[in-house]
């Protein structure tokens, strides 16, 4: 009788892990956290532009998942559910800061070292592959600053689309809006971002 080892848990799907969580297996929950912590934290960070806030939101998202996983019926992907919670918590955090008169923190540094982890810039390698835009570090640094100035709704769709690489259907499911809304919002977000980038350079 072979026991389930670490190597095998890695092959289990999210849905299987969720089912095991629902039957009281805390190790399965740990596995879900370890598998998706990077994703949750990074989305939160892109939305909030603050590492401490992002860590808090990402952790709270998993806490919320742990407490309500019994009611999760698998109507959507686990990651969609996770993204929904992260986005909602980040929105709450935005409001929380806005009430205190603090706006988004904009960091012009591409690399930020914190106690909780390092942020590093991943700039696409200058390959000659067709259809793959080559972005320079300077461009990313500028874009990073401009992203922080975007309205949260624009930031959400851009992050979900290009950071999380979700398609429009998944974004619509995450944000609870129509695909048409996602399409037009992404177009407007890019337009706004492009204009602000032009002003800069």
């Amino acid at each position, binding site marked *: 009788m072979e026991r389930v080892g670490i190597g095998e848990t890695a092959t289990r799907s999210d849905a299987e892990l969720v089912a095991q969580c629902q039957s009281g297996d805390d190790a399965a929950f740990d596995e879900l956290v370890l598998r998706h912590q990077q994703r949750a*934290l990074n989305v939160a960070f892109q939305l909030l532009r603050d590492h*401490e806030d992002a860590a808090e939101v990402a952790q709270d998202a998993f806490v919320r998942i742990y407490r309500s996983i019994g009611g999760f019926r698998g109507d959507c992907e686990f990651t969609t559910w996770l993204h929904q919670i992260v986005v909602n918590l980040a929105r709450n955090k935005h409001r929380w800061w806005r009430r205190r008169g603090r706006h988004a923190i904009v960091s012009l540094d591409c690399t930020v070292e914190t106690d909780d982890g390092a942020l590093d810039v991943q700039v696409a390698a200058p390959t000659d592959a067709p259809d793959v835009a080559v972005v320079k570090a300077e461009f990313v640094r500028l874009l990073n600053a401009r992203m922080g100035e975007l309205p949260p709704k624009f930031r959400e769709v851009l*992050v979900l*689309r290009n950071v999380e690489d979700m398609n429009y259907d998944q974004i619509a499911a995450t944000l609870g809006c129509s695909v048409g809304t996602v399409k037009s919002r992404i177009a407007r977000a890019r337009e706004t971002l492009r204009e602000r980038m032009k002003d800069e350079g």
Partner: protein
Amino acid sequence: MKDCSHIGTELSAYVDSELAPEKRAEVEKHIAGCPRCQQRVAGLRELAAGVAALPKAQPAPQFLAEVRRKIRGERDTSGQRSWADIVFRPFWVKVPLEALAVVVLLIGASALFLPRSRQARRLPATAMQRESEPAPAPPAETVVATAAQPAREAPAAANGFARMRAAGRDEIAPAPAAPAPAAKAAAEWTVDQRGVIGTNRVEGSMRQHLDFSQTAGSPFVQQAEEVIVVQSDNPGTVHSRVAFMVRPLNGSVTPTSDAGQGVQKFYVLLPPENVAPFKAHFTEAEKLMARRQNVLQLESKAEDRADSMIVPSASVGGATNVVVPLGASGEEPKQSAVLEIQVVPPKR
């Protein structure tokens, strides 16, 4: 150029490969002949790649441990969350908390002040129960006085056939001896009772508030040194008459309360040294009344108990037999003496 404005919003979706095949073909056809849109597509691709290349946050090694800690509901021990953070919570959390606090305070305040009349009577009673000392059981020497008419301040009971009897306190469970002063409680009680009695609110309106002696756990049940049973149609008259008599003796009475089966009862609080004068006064008053009616009758029943009431032998004209045990006072100085007076309907 005219097609550009038409196709403009589609370019973003084209870059994301989110266009339906026919729409995609249409856009590609346009782009092929439009350098400006080719440039826009390139710009959009650069933007998308730039967003994808934004600095990424890496989770700390303790991320999972933090999640677990939060699930266990533990407080953040990293020191970021100070008491001030908790006190100055977000507005929408703080206001409901404060509103809740106000509601709790209001409920507490109403519990303290609304049933004030009841509290005012109950407090000294319990104080008495705790603090006063039981008297040694005296041998009950009884005097029976018969009166045809109740006391003068209660002419309404003139036709009532009242009978009073007192029994020794040996039937009463002894209360724990305690030297603590009950004088203050008794004093408060006296003030309160005098005020109430002075406004002639003796019966009816007061009775509805009073039920503390109704239960077996009555504060005076174990405290009453003697039980005096009075037969009368009108408990209010008996009450006011007794109240009138005890006032010069620095005593007080509790309001009457329903003891069940038509019996009303109340308690007399007296300085111990005034118990004998009270009883003598009471007996004399009854005698006086009886003499006036020329229906004087004396009985002596030392073995009387509260459960074996004396039936008046001379019941003509509505006599009142009073059986008062004497000798209950003068042995030891006490803070206060308590007599229980039961008013029972006359047996006809």
